[in-house]
């Protein structure tokens, strides 16, 4: 079971006649049993891509294949796709059990059969006590679990998630990342997960696709995207901190990750003044002129101090100043 998107183009007409390229020639593949994370800033087209795969949005050009079958013209309801919406999209007038079972009811399954399926799924996700509640009585995490249950109940060919953890608090988010992975493994289907959270993308994805302005800039395993970003845009957006990009010299932009920058009181390197120091637990973020560095708290300089920043040559990344592409 796999999902393939080929040459997808989609243009939106915004108000006052302006046109926005939501998808500008996107090629993408989610392999069988794979969790593909699409990451990008808001407006990058990642949610549109998800809606295109689900069949909620028609394409201007290009194809969508699910299990090697062209489903481009197939309506959403016949694609056998499950979609977990941002903010869960639970039906406020229905109880939790009815919310989980509504897909089965929509497809005409008898009520008694639906009830037993609902209990089964609820047991797997450990939400049995919630079944008699109303959506308004649930916390953000509980709502997302119910939404996951609604997606799981049908054993879909593909599972799509649209920022499912955006409204869940930090502690629960860590736990639910694991739960989503577990659900995905038990279903054994490709899962496409859209998020703007870089950390979430790195932590969860078998592979990540970095999107910006309607294009996929890079698609690879997270470690590879982190170690060898394909463009300056990926370097700036992907990772726990944006990469430092130094002014171009002879048409080459040099980049270095803040995690690899060392701040010394003296010695060789770029001399500069400490502009700001931001404590972050064991470590702190230090800005020296235009270079950001992450250093242990014990080594933290003071604002205004004269320091020298250095890094190893092998930690440097080089990009074309013109195109932004990796050299």
């Amino acid at each position, binding site marked *: 079971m796999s999902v393939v998107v080929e040459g997808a183009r989609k243009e939106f007409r915004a108000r006052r006649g302006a046109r926005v390229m939501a998808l500008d020639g996107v090629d993408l593949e989610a392999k069988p049993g794979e969790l593909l994370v699409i990451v990008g800033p808001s407006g990058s087209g990642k949610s549109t891509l998800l809606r295109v795969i*689900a069949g909620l949005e028609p394409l201007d050009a290009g194809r969508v294949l699910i299990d090697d079958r062209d489903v481009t013209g197939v309506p*959403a*309801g016949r694609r056998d796709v499950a979609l977990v919406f941002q903010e869960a999209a639970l039906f406020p007038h229905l*109880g939790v059990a009815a919310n989980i*079972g509504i897909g089965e*009811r*929509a497809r005409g399954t008898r009520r008694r059969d639906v009830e037993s399926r609902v209990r089964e799924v609820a047991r797997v996700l450990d939400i049995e006590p919630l079944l008699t509640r*109303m959506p308004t009585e649930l916390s953000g995490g509980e709502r997302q679990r119910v939404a996951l249950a609604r997606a799981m109940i049908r054993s879909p060919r593909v599972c799509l998630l649209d920022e499912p953890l955006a409204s869940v608090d930090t502690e629960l988010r860590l736990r639910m990342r694991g739960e989503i992975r577990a659900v995905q493994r038990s279903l054994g289907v490709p899962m496409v997960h859209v998020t703007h959270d870089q950390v979430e993308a790195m932590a969860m994805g078998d592979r990540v696709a970095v999107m910006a302005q309607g294009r996929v800039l890079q698609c690879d395993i997270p470690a590879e995207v982190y170690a060898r970003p394909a463009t300056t845009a990926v370097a700036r957006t992907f990772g726990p901190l944006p990469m430092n990009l130094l002014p171009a010299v002879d048409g080459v932009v040099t980049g270095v990750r803040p995690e690899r920058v060392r701040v010394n009181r003296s010695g060789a390197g770029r001399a500069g003044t400490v502009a700001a120091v931001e404590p972050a637990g064991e470590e702190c973020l230090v800005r020296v002129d235009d270079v950001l560095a992450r250093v242990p708290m014990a080594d933290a300089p003071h604002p205004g101090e004269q320091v020298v920043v250095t890094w190893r040559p092998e930690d440097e990344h080089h990009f074309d100043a013109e195109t932004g592409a990796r050299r």
Partner: protein
Amino acid sequence: MRRWPLAAPYLAGSALLVLVPLGLAAALAFTDYFGFRAPEFTGADNLTRLAADGTFWDAVGISAFVAAVVVPLRLLLAVGAALLLARRRGARTAVGRAAAYLPSVIPDAAWALLWLWILNPLYGPLPALLGVLGVPDPGFLTTPWGARLGLVLVMTFQVGEAFVVALAARLAIPARLHEAIEVEGGSPWFAMTRVTLPLMAPIVLVLAVRDMVVVVQNAFVPTLLVTDGGPANATLTAPLLIYRRAFEYGELGYASTLSVTLLVLTGIAAALPLWLAARLAAHQRART
């Protein structure tokens, strides 16, 4: 911020033009008053007269009949139009929405004159149309049930206010709820009956109650201008009777008794659907 200064004109105006008059009506209901001499307290005399007033209870029955037939028709039209016209923006939607509101733009009196012609047995296009189609003419202005049918027709189209409220309620449902049904393969019928209508139900209910009041009241204009309460009092509705008592016979005291009675009956009729809805909501909650 202190909010009451903003609400003051509205509350004062409502008090002067609604609450105080209601109180006054309640007081006048127990008097004989003809406008030129001070009201004379008569105790329960008006109530005794009311109880035996067959014409009034017939009129209440006709009002109730008209409301019972017309309100469901109007809601069907208003909610149906709102559902059809809730889709995307576009020129056709805009024209449709304007068209649905249009009959409500026509002044009631002009609307009544229009139907005075449409229903006319000799010159009216509707009897003529029925003749062409081979349908027997019910005698819209000449027989009791024909006149009531005519009244129903006059009352059915002007649903602008209800249409707009239903449209707002429909547009307030988040699109992703319908998308969720779409992805799950639910039919449009399933989406409408299990999602759209249940979510609109509370508003539709308020509309039903409000529309009942509007229909009972607004039937006044066509009954005055088109049927004049006839033939043989077949369309003599409660407001028309109150109007005649008060302004043609000048019995302001007894007319107040009738007004307050109508108000109380309306209140009871309004409470019924609200009670029903509360029961329904409780039932819905327990279902899978």
